[in-house]
């Protein structure tokens, strides 16, 4: 109640009205300050020092304080402040280190009152005591703060920060004796004005210079600081240790901070460089400014709230030589333009999607999702009823879509990763082993690939045609899902259509996932599917029952078109289609796997000379063993690329490792690196650390190989003097003692050192192992019951 009363009295006789307006100054401004009655503003800079009165809809120049024959450096202001008790009193800080006071009540043209030339370097800040008329404080580049009594000629006391330049000084609004000072080295100090010998408290607030600080007008313990590290921090000074309670990350160094009157959590900031806008933040919502003023064309150098108790008017001066009055009504509110949406996949195929509540609800009305939408969870932020500003409110909804258990399961990935053999045996064995692993998991296509690789690379010259036929036959009989209409193709190989279906069976899990959970994805897909005859909305209206037809059409059409090309070129456009829809598995695979298929195709479509030649050669090579395995490299490469594109980077990487030099040069380094990193990333998400390490070790990419050589340093401290041992691990430079002695043999350990975490005794790995086999006590005789696991 009391506060309200004060507001009305303060504003009572002098209601503030106005609009967003500006005026041109003659020169860039460095700082601005307002008179207590909010009717006048002073602007100071290197070449300007003027007072403007703030009228209803314009600024009017009242007084130019830069007088005299020759412009002196005393006029070159770094900062200006208007006394909040005495409206005739002003103080400026000059770049040459002089502190000047001005008395507007003087009859002469020159209003300069007093000159304090005590600072050796530029004065960065001046500040009047909020309640004491004659007390002025200054902070300078030379590292000193000085307190002046305006009735005396010299400073009353000098405070030495004992460190670098002072960037800002501010009297506490509530504590009569306290002021805060911020420094170039990142520190903030609190001083008692009566004790110039030593600061009361010091803490490091920022990394790099702290450019500004501001005490909260209502909450006595809060201090906001802004630094070059682009942060605004709010400190609670009530506790014994200053505690950071809020932190706002901005996009540029923070030059000024000013609490917004009457709004407990709002603070205005402007930046030192690059960014010209003024932001008003709600410190509880540090990611997006609650209001933004974008008028200035160059960096804003000074901001000030027009009236102590009015939160709607902000004045600002800038390097672009303008003075602005901003009205809150006209502020742009980034939150209106922001589209708060988030989308993330989990490891097991679940999808989480968060968006504005309004968006979600309207969207689901329009088009219900198909598939398994399981757990829509809604979060809503309750509005603070005491908060009077409505624009900080927002609510969003989070929906989580789970895939059904069997289709979303990634067990096959884990099993495969664990069971694959990648090295240490002849290629043929590796391939056979891996084929078996794949087949056991019902991944016939991958199994087939392994078998083919074996045939291509290791059994060349030894494989009899019977053997080959056998393997193919085996592959095709294990197909889990077949459509009747293509059965006749299977004995001679795998018809493209049947293969399609089979592949669809395998990848159905993914399809469902995609279709049901996110129309967004489909939309994108759709745009890329040029050349397909399928109408766009057909793809979108993905109803379960239509799927078969859809995919058939989708793939037959481009397929037919592509076959005009010769074989090597064909691979690329086709793959492009495959990217568009994950169900399009196996066109390429067909060719790599089985010459029969290609032969079939060759018969059915136009026969360009190149194609027929190559196809015939393939068949020949397999049966008559005339071609070197290099011949197949492009096909194998395409196979791998295809698997990777399809998302099965596991197969791609495994094949890459197993084949080693045979295929490596076919694929460019970057792609390989990309595969490796993706696979390793996946393995690590599944916590298959050993396997990921094995893959890293087996990889031939330099970038990957050095992954497990990074950050292998172990920093240790000397056990005697407790200081870090820099040079060698076993002898301390300082105390010249051998630090790590083996508790068993009493010799220095220069290799693997094993120690007990309980009693910190230890020694050679072998010795400790041996010791603990026979005894359960610590070998050092400390009585601890050590354990070795």
């Amino acid at each position, binding site marked *: 109640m009391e506060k309200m009363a004060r507001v009305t009295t303060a504003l009572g006789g002098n209601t503030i009205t106005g609009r967003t307006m500006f005026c041109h100054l003659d020169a860039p401004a460095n700082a601005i300050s307002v008179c207590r009655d909010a009717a006048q503003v002073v602007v100071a800079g*290197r070449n300007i020092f003027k007072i403007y009165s703030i009228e209803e809809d314009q600024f009017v120049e009242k007084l130019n304080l830069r007088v005299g024959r*020759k412009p*002196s*450096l*005393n006029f*070159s202001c*770094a900062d200006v402040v208007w006394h909040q008790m005495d409206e005739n009193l002003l103080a400026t800080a*000059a*770049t*040459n*280190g002089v502190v000047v006071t001005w008395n507007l009540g003087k009859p002469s043209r020159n209003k300069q009152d007093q000159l304090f*030339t005590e*600072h*050796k*370097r*530029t004065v960065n800040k001046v500040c009047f005591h909020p309640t004491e008329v004659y007390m002025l404080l200054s902070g300078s*580049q030379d590292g000193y703060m000085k307190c002046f009594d305006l009735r005396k000629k010299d400073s009353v006391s000098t405070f030495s920060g004992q460190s670098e330049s002072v960037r800002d000084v501010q009297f506490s609004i509530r504590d009569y004796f306290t002021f805060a000072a911020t420094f*170039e080295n990142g520190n903030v100090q609190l001083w008692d004005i009566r004790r110039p010998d030593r600061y009361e408290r010091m803490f490091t607030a920022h990394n*790099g*210079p702290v*450019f500004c600080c501001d005490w909260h007008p209502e909450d006595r313990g809060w201090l906001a600081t802004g630094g*070059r590290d682009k942060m605004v921090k709010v400190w609670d000074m009530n506790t014994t240790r200053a505690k950071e309670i809020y932190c706002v990350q901005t996009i*540029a*160094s923070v030059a000024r901070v000013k609490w917004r009157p009457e709004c407990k959590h709002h603070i205005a900031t402007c*930046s*030192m*460089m*690059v960014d*010209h806008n003024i932001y008003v933040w709600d410190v509880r919502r540090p990611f997006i400014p609650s209001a933004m003023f974008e008028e200035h*064309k160059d*960096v804003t150098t000074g901001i000030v709230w027009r009236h102590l108790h009015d939160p709607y008017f902000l004045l600002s001066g800038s*390097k*672009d030589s303008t003075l602005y009055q901003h009205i809150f009504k006209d502020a742009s509110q980034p939150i209106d333009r922001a589209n708060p949406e988030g989308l993330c996949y989990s490891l097991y195929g679940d999808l989480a999607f968060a968006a504005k509540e309004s968006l979600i609800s309207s969207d689901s009305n329009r088009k219900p999702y198909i598939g398994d939408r399981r757990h829509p969870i809604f979060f809503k932020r309750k509005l603070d009823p005491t908060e009077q500003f409505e624009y900080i409110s927002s609510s969003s909804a989070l929906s989580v879509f789970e895939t059904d258990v069997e289709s979303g399961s990634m067990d096959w990935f884990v099993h495969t990763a664990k069971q694959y053999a990648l090295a240490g045996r002849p290629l043929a064995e590796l391939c056979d082993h891996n084929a078996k692993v794949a087949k056991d998991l019902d991944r016939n296509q991958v199994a087939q690939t392994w078998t083919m690789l074996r045939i291509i690379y290791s059994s060349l010259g030894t494989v009899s045609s019977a053997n080959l036929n056998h393997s193919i036959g085996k592959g095709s009989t294990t197909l889990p899902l077949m459509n009747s209409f293509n059965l006749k193709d299977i004995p001679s190989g795998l018809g493209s259509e049947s293969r399609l279906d089979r592949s669809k069976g395998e990848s159905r899990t993914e399809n469902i996932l995609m279709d049901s959970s996110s129309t967004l994805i489909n939309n994108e897909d759709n745009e890329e599917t040029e050349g397909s005859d399928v109408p766009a909305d057909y793809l979108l209206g993905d109803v379960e029952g239509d799927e078969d037809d859809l995919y058939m059409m989708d793939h037959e059409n481009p397929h037919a078109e592509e076959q005009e090309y010769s074989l090597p070129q064909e691979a690329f456009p086709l793959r492009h289609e495959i990217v568009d829809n994950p169900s399009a598995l196996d066109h390429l695979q067909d060719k790599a796997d089985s010459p029969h298929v290609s032969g079939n195709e060759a018969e059915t479509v136009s026969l360009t000379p190149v194609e027929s030649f190559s196809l015939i050669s393939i068949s020949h090579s397999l049966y008559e063993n005339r071609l070197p395995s290099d011949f197949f490299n492009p096909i194998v490469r395409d196979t791998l690329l295809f698997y990777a594109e399809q998302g099965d980077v596991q197969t791609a990487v495994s094949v890459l490792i197993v084949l080693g030099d045979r295929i490596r040069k076919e694929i460019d380094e970057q792609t390989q690196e990309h595969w490796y990193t993706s696979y390793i990333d996946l393995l690590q998400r599944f916590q298959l650390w050993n396997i990921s390490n094995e893959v890293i070790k087996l990889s031939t990419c330099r970038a990957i190989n050095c992954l497990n050589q990074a950050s292998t*340093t*172990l920093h*240790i401290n000397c056990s005697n003097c407790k200081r870090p*041992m*820099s*040079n*060698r*691990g*076993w002898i301390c*430079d300082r105390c010249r003692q051998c630090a*790590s002695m083996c508790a068993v043999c009493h010799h220095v*350990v*220069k*290799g*693997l*050192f*094993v*120690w*007990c*975490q309980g009693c910190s005794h*230890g020694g050679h*790995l072998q010795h*400790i192992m041996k010791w603990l086999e026979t005894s359960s006590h610590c070998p050092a005789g400390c009585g601890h019951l*050590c*354990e*070795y*696991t």
Partner: protein
Amino acid sequence: MLVAGSQCCSPGLAEYRGCGPLRGGEDRGIKMPRQLGRGPSAFIPVEEILREGVESSRRQLFIDAFVSAGKVDNIAMVMGLHPQYLSSFWKTQYLLLRMDGPLPYHKRHYIAIMAAARHQCSYLVGLHMGEFLQVGGNPAWLQGLHCAPPKLRSLNEINKLLAHRPWLITKEHIEALLKTGENSWSLAELVQALVLLTHYHSLASFVFGCGINPEAEQDGGPGCRPPSPHGDSSPASDDGVGGSGGKDAMREVEVLMERMQLLRESQLEEEGVTQEEMATRFELEKTESLLVAPSDIAAPTSLQSNVLCFVEDPEFGYKDFTRRGEQAPPTFRAQDYTWEDHGYSLINRLYPDVGQLLDEKFQVVYNLTYNTIAMHCGVDTSMLRRAIWNYVHCVFGIRYDDYDYGEVNQLLERSLKVYIKTVACYPEKTTKRMYTQFWRHFKHSEKVHVNLLLLEARMQAALLYALRAVTRYMT
């Protein structure tokens, strides 16, 4: 229980003494540059740099550098006199040349070549020609600037200005480089290029200022011009440096000490200097710097074509901006665009990390002191250091409002001013005589200290001009 591998130290490096890593390397059959008799600098006797029993911190530093770069070059050897600075310098240079950044590696080295060539510094040009080829640069580019891609060629103008008259850089220059087109620069690339250019311009100052000798492997090759072309190149001829100088030299030190004391007292007592006087003092210092131009301005005849080929318009050089009868460009007010506030903020936005390292480097060099002057200990040298720093900025037209330029006159004797101005503005004209003539009774390490201040002050000055132009372009 935990298992840990103890750190171990390679025996080859452990026996390092001064130039020792070379020895260690050879033991292991690696081809190493061999230590020649004359040492890393033509001005400073070898013993001075390779004092037996170098402190362990410095040794460690050299070892680290050797491990990371494969060699310890002569620059590092000389800078090693100030290990605290060297580590900071190294970190920055490493980031600039070898860490992630917007520019590809070979272009970075090519830019270094271009920058060094502006000052005809064959040492740096040679060094980076090697590096350029090592990172896979196209050898054809080394035939000259005309063979480089147009994108790099377009950097020539700004290179020229930065090297000699940085105050002429305007936002139009920046605009021209950034305007969209086939050979345009991105802002981040440009900032890295600017840092590289200024780094190598000022490093060239250091090379000439300390008379750095060519590396052993460069020796005899065509790429090496002796750094001091003007006569007396006999190494370590003992004309008074660091040794038993004449009485004059002794007195010099005393006079300097007295003056510093005097200034300090006068500062405490009277503040009677008017602002106008301060302003005129700066102007005076500026114009006076005209007079301290080196007397022996030789035509650049000894230029070798392999350096010259990276230079267009070789006649363009430093020109005093206060020459009579010309419109002087407006003085750069240090307070309006400071490194700490504006330069850092801008650079950190466009090329992160480097801002932090440069900031550290500037701070280290500005605050570096051993509290000694010649044979005196426990002296506060901040005044002297500030005078040198501000004088360098002064010759590039940067003025500090809060500095009394009368101090420069008091503290820096004429021979020192000549040396500073020469090394900062046209380093290729530095001679050994200049080096020996100033501060005759001071230690070599102190003269290197002066060179470090010079290097960094020059770099900051040029960088400030360049960044100001970028800022103006962006607003």
